[in-house]
């Protein structure tokens, strides 16, 4: 099977992120490969181990290729970086157009992405790439089995009141959710090797795309700090009076019950 995994290097959830101005954030320099993208890589590797074939990791990033190196260290065969100054200011739709243009003449059976990237939390790129390629997609999968002969996937998806099982013909795109697997931790030796691995670099011109093909549909107009909660009110009376007071506060002050 030919499997492509779309990956992104993002600030670690523990990184400090602050609003610097209306148009700028201050982000602590602590990055990791987006949690759900590692799950997607692991899913690709597991399938490859079963059916043979190849896993390629693919990113659009003008600066960081660490997510690709993470992929290689975990076992991916190939890595591709799409970078271009014209992508500055791109939105998720522009990225989807870029990624799908790269993918459209590749022999893929399966494309895997994260449920959402752990920075913008948008969850747009995956389904939008599938639309551009005209292949089916399923969002937020927690189970995956592939019948390589029948070119069909059996998928488990999380919905509000339970779990849905679906079948889907390949090629298809799935976005991966926690629960699908536990990503392997690469061996130090492989991490070293990945540092030196060759990464293919592609620009927009070689894809036949120009700046107008990556103009955004949505734009961040302004960053704002999160609404501040007032300081906590500690109920300091002894038990059981504290419980009575808390119930009273919730009913009469917060009015939530």
């Amino acid at each position, binding site marked *: 099977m030919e499997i492509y995994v779309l990956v992104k290097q993002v600030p670690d959830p523990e990184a400090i992120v602050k609003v610097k101005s209306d148009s700028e954030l201050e982000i602590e320099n602590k990055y990791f490969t987006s949690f759900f993208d590692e799950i997607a890589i692991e899913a690709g590797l597991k399938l490859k181990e079963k059916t043979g074939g190849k896993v390629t990791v693919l990113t659009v990033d003008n600066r960081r290729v660490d997510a690709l190196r993470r992929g290689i260290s975990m076992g991916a065969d190939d890595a591709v970086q799409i970078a271009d100054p014209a992508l500055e200011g791109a939105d998720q739709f522009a990225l989807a157009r870029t990624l799908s243009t790269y993918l459209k003449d590749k022999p893929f059976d399966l494309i895997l992405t994260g449920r959402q990237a752990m920075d913008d939390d948008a969850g747009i790129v995956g389904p*939008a790439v599938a*639309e551009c390629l005209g292949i089916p997609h*399923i*969002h937020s999968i927690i189970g995956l089995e592939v019948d390589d002969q029948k070119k069909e996937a059996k998928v488990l998806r999380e919905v509000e009141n339970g779990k849905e099982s679906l079948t889907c013909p390949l090629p298809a795109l799935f976005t991966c959710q926690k629960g699908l697997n536990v990503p392997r931790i690469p061996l130090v030796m492989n991490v070293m090797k990945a540092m030196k691995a060759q990464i293919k670099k592609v620009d927009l011109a070689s894809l036949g795309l120009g700046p107008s093909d990556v103009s*955004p549909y949505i734009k961040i107009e302004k960053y704002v700090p999160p609404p501040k909660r*007032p300081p906590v009110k500690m109920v300091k009376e002894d038990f059981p009076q504290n419980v009575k007071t808390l119930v009273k506060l*919730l009913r009469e002050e917060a009015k939530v*019950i």
Partner: protein
Amino acid sequence: MSNDIWVLAEHHEGKVKKITFELLSAGIDFSKKTGQEVAALLLGSGLEEAVKSLTPFADKIYLMDAPSFTPYTSDAYLASIASLIKEHQPSILLGGATSTGKDLFPRLAMHLQTGYAPDCTGLSMGEDGKLTARRPLFGGKVFAEMAFSEARPRMATVRNNAFLVNENPGKSAKVISVPPHIDPSLLKKKVTGFEKATGAKLDITEADIVVAAGRGIKAPENFKLIEDLADVLNGSVGTTRATVDEGWRDLKDQIGKSGKNISAKLYMAFGISGAIHHVLGIGTCKTVVAVDTDPNALIFNYADYGIAGDLFQIVPALTEEFKKALVADQ
């Protein structure tokens, strides 16, 4: 161009979900500024009860009746909705940030080549009709105000409890039956089964009240205490990654960065230390209560009310106290 505000109605077992009424209420508010009409988009079959409950909330209901809409797949929904949008050219299309909304909207937006703001916690409409969407980034460490390009419709999915349901919507919708656009060759995905979650409770993303416990609960069977409290409050039970990793609770109930974002009116955390990964999931809850034996637990930094105490003492007493208070109300 009709300029209308459309809301994709979501329903489960024939009943329209609360998020749909919240979004229609927001639509009614916006329409007062710009004179647009508000329409609900209803796909499925056997939806008499849904039509009835939506009627006071919209000027129009576009009803597409076909069995292949239930259960949802994007294959069936996308073409039908896209062709209706092309015909009527609404100005705005809203949906819930639900498993359906998150599956359908990004793909539909790409199909229509229009802007989509996902997982919003607020929307505002200027006098000039400009729509601004507010959404959390980095799990809520910052928020972004998003603007849309000229393309229409402007699309957004919105979390629960971002808007109040209008008590007096005052509309009386005209029902417009629309033939669905279903090309059987495009129905590629097939839903082959559904495993209903145990318990009749709402998903934690949909519940107004979420009661949660973390590792401080010490053993899986002790969750009974938390469930009893949730039952009295008609709430749902959430948890942390710690208990999910222990195998005590199901992943679907995990709140936080690698779990779910919740927007409950009341969130109560018992024996939860307040790791950043966890509290990122509760940033848009209205009122937060924390109980932890450690008076310095980080969770208190994110709470409105706190008690430094033993959950095994406090939870059963709270259950009794709420029971008393709620009985007195009746």
